[in-house]
């Protein structure tokens, strides 16, 4: 064996060893998108206890924004959707242990989560804001001057509102969400600081006093969660969401489940 051939053999062996090593260290490199297309089924984690994103309807079938989104993505991929009910505590663990391919479970983004999983582009608006009645011209915190706003004591939006509200605005703090909502519906307060999902429920139950968004306090939209190192799947999901946003599908979901159009900056 001459020197050149020996060197080549060494290189090949090293390369092989490297490849084996790499695949052992990164089993997730396997292309989940290809697997989904092969199996003709995508497993998606959805909530069942978080209306209007996911709950069990009167017909005992899951329904909600997340359910519609999951079915939409499966349809766009041309595969069957297998919905896996999860809770907010175990949804990321389901993804990490490969029990599901995607998490569509009103998942918000934060740095801790970004270390362990990847996020798509946002697919649903999720925010807290100040709501009031139609046509009072309030568009920012300064507009609350001299007005009374109800909020749930200790909630994020209450703490933020306490900082934002002008000095001569009154914040009435209630014990829980129900009391805050009751105060608004009964007319004890004309403004409430609450989440868009709560406002959607109020709009449905109390059409005569429909809460309308005045300004956003804290915005944390929902993202589809997926395992790291799945570039093909991530690109595909992003493409589907972008298309859904462009063709009005997301706007329709928003009207159906959140009783409001998509926010302008979404």
């Amino acid at each position, binding site marked *: 064996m001459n020197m050149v051939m020996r060197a080549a053999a060494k290189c090949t062996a090293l390369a092989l060893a490297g490849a084996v090593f790499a695949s052992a260290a990164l089993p997730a490199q396997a292309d989940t998108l290809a697997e989904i297309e092969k199996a003709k089924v995508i497993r998606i984690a959805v909530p069942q206890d978080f209306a209007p994103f996911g709950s069990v309807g009167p017909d005992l079938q899951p329904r909600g924004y997340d359910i519609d989104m999951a079915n939409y993505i499966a349809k766009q991929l041309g595969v069957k959707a297998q919905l896996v009910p999860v809770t907010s505590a175990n949804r990321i663990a389901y993804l990490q242990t490969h029990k599901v391919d995607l998490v569509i479970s009103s998942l918000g983004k934060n740095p801790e989560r970004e270390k362990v999983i990847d996020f798509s582009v946002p697919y649903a608006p999720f925010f807290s804001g100040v709501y009031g009645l139609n046509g009072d011209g309030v568009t920012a915190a300064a507009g609350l001057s001299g007005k009374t706003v*109800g909020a749930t*004591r*200790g909630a994020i939006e*209450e*703490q933020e509102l306490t900082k934002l509200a002008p000095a001569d605005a009154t914040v*009435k*703090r*209630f*014990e829980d969400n129900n*009391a805050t909502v*009751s*105060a608004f519906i*009964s*007319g*004890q307060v004309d403004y409430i600081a609450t989440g868009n999902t709560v406002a959607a429920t109020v709009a449905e139950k109390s059409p005569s006093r429909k809460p309308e968004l005045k300004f956003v306090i804290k915005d944390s939209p929902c993202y589809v969660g997926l395992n790291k190192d799945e570039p093909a799947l991530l690109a595909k999901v992003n493409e589907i969401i972008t298309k859904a946003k462009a063709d009005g599908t997301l706007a329709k979901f928003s009207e159906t489940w959140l009783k409001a159009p998509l926010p302008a900056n979404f």
Partner: protein
Amino acid sequence: MIQQLNFGDLLPYWDVFARGLVFTIVLTLTSTVAGLALGTAGAWARTFGPKWAGAVTRVYVEIIRNTPFIVQLFFIFFGLPALGVKLSEDVAAFIAMVINLGAYSTEIIRAGIEAVPKGHLEAGASLAMSRWEIFRHIVLKPALMKVYPALSSQIVIVMLGSAVVSQISAEDLTYAANYIQSRNFRAFEVYIVAAFLYLLLAIGLRALLRGIGRAMFPKG
């Protein structure tokens, strides 16, 4: 295990506690005066008043004494606006307390009135006093004197019960405690301070009532 106690975290909120304390004191004093007036009127209606007034009072007393205070409060604050009666949380709290104390004190004062010997009433009648004059001059004072300890207890109970008004966002002592707790999460320290303040309030209220009792009923 208990975490390290730290009452220092409460110091920045002393003014919240102070405002809550003042609110509870003012609410208790005003609603006690109005509630006792209502109770006296109710007791009169049930013993000396016309039949219809007695019947109405009886229904009122039974409804209030047999329903929870918090439900009465929620009805006034969240329920009445549906009938077009919109009250602020402070006024709603005051009215709920007055109505509540009024019902209980009606029964307490009525018991005192019925304990006044019949002979005293007949003595008044034989002096040509009207029913109102008999009630005013012969019946009321000895009746109140007899039931004064029971009335005092009821007033303290109503004061402690006022903690519930925090549920409709009235900013009393309990509201202050809940508010501070939602900010610094020092539940143990916050509520032990609140409990201590209520204890002081109750002791102070009893002393005040004893003093008033001694002044009103010198022999009792």
